[in-house]
């Protein structure tokens, strides 16, 4: 499905601020995998996501999707395969445009954009159905500007926009971290439902240890630019938060340090 082969990325190479963001990372994502990613600050979680989505290009190494090497392909071309939800609820939608216009743009992911009318009646009908699935009443506000929605509503919309066209891979970069607990829980529940129903291959970065264990079928732990642990489904189902933290300390030799970490 998706392979990361010996991927390495340096920040500020050749300067006193040189930093290894990711070193020799290998990852084989199988179809239907739902992988949660945890790690300390600067472990390379976001870099991993950015290498896959094309925001960054690896200095060395390959990114392969379904047999095609894509590491030098620009971000907008990779969007054909990849759906993304960002941490910032403002980042995934266009605020001065309406809900239906935002969905129209999401509908066209990876397809050529021509001079046909965007939000046609047929598409609006589809959007209404999709919006009613997330059950927060957005289907009755389709011509409202997205900037008027709350952070939680915008993030729910972003999640829908990223998924309803069935991307081959879904990247979630701490997409609940900027929300209050109740809304974070709503988005988590929606994520779980959507990923299960559509059987999406998913990579999710999270700071919430309990969530990392509860969701998905695989767990990856990162530290200092390396993938230090890859826990398969069989072990993951019986894992506890304290075991997970213990495991981290044993392998990395230091405590999982993260000012935002949530133990659950």
């Amino acid at each position, binding site marked *: 499905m998706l392979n990361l082969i010996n991927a390495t990325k340096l920040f500020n190479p050749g300067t006193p601020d040189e930093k290894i963001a990711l070193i020799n990372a290998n990852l084989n994502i199988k179809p239907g995998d739902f992988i949660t990613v945890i790690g300390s600050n600067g472990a390379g979680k976001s870099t991993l996501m950015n290498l896959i989505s094309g925001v960054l290009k690896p200095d060395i190494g390959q990114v392969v999707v379904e047999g095609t090497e894509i590491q030098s392909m620009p*971000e907008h071309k990779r969007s054909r395969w*990849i759906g*993304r939800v960002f941490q910032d609820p403002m980042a*995934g*939608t*266009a605020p001065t445009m309406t809900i239906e216009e935002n969905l129209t*743009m999401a509908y*066209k992911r990876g397809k050529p*954009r021509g001079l046909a009318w965007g939000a046609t009646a047929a598409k609006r009908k589809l959007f209404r159905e999709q919006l009613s699935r997330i059950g927060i009443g957005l289907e009755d506000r389709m011509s409202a500007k997205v900037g008027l929605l709350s952070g939680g509503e915008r993030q729910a919309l972003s999640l829908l926009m990223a998924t309803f066209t069935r991307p081959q891979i879904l990247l979630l970069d701490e997409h609940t971290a900027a929300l209050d607990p109740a809304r974070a829980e709503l988005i988590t529940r929606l994520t779980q439902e959507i990923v299960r129903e559509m059987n999406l291959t998913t990579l999710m970065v999270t700071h919430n240890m309990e969530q990392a264990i509860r969701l998905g079928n695989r767990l990856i732990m990162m530290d200092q630019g390396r993938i230090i642990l890859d826990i398969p489904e069989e072990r993951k189902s019986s894992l506890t938060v304290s075991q997970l933290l213990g495991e981290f300390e044993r392998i990395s030799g230091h405590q999982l340090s993260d000012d935002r970490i949530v133990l659950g």
Partner: protein
Amino acid sequence: MIDSIYGAIALGLLYALMALGVYMTFRILNFPDLTVDGSFATGGGIAAVMITHGYHPALATLAAFAGGILAGMCTGLLHTKGKVNGLLAGILMMIALHSINLRIMGKPNVSIVNVDTLISPIVKPVGLFILVAGIGVLIVKLLLDVFLHTDTGLALRATGDNERMIRSFGANTDRTKILGVSLSNGLVAVSGALIAQQGGFADVTMGVGMIVIGLASVIIGEAIFGARSVFFATLAVVLGSIIYRIVVALALRVELLKASDLKLVTALIVIVALVVPYVRRVLKQRSVARKRSAELLSTAMPGKGGRS
């Protein structure tokens, strides 16, 4: 007095196309494009030269549109592919266009008096002129509205609104920016071509200050008529352009002012239009914050000075 207002409405309609161009870059793409000062004269120059060489004025105006698109494309390429700062890319093109315009025109001023133009059949009476020009501008405005609701148009708007988001949905934002800046300068050049035909000449300096006039039109229109959707925003821009011309016509009737004060008056209009809404917003926010805090205090501490 009334005559000068009619004249102002007529001029405002011709300049409205330029204002729509400025609206596209400033508001939709969120890209302050200063190419406008150059491409306005490019449009005027191309039209005047072609008309003096006996080409049909409609063809000449179309050629001006193409010239403007080309100029905008250069700015867009400089900014996106050359990674030149947007303001600087526009200024560079503006300066380059000054020389290019002189090359096109061959001399600083090309006269097209006593020749058939697009304007000459309708120039009198002024009512007819306003009607025809009004319909023409309305058609361009509606075409622009439709374009901005197509898939490409939506991607263009999203590029100015949230570039990261639309890239994640597969749009090439370099391409949408180049497209937007090109189209914008095409409209500006058509406006220049029409102004040249209306005035009977093209001058290499005819574009100086255009960007501020365009911005003034956009801001005045939005302030008075609002911009809740694309349809109303473009309508507001057209009306803003007309109102700007009326304000100028009235200002010029004031004894104190000379025609040469026009640019100062324009700058003042833009400054007032920019500063007043900001001050009003700050004052409003402050009063809302005070009111809400007082409400919260009174509910949190019942009996302590609260009205319950």
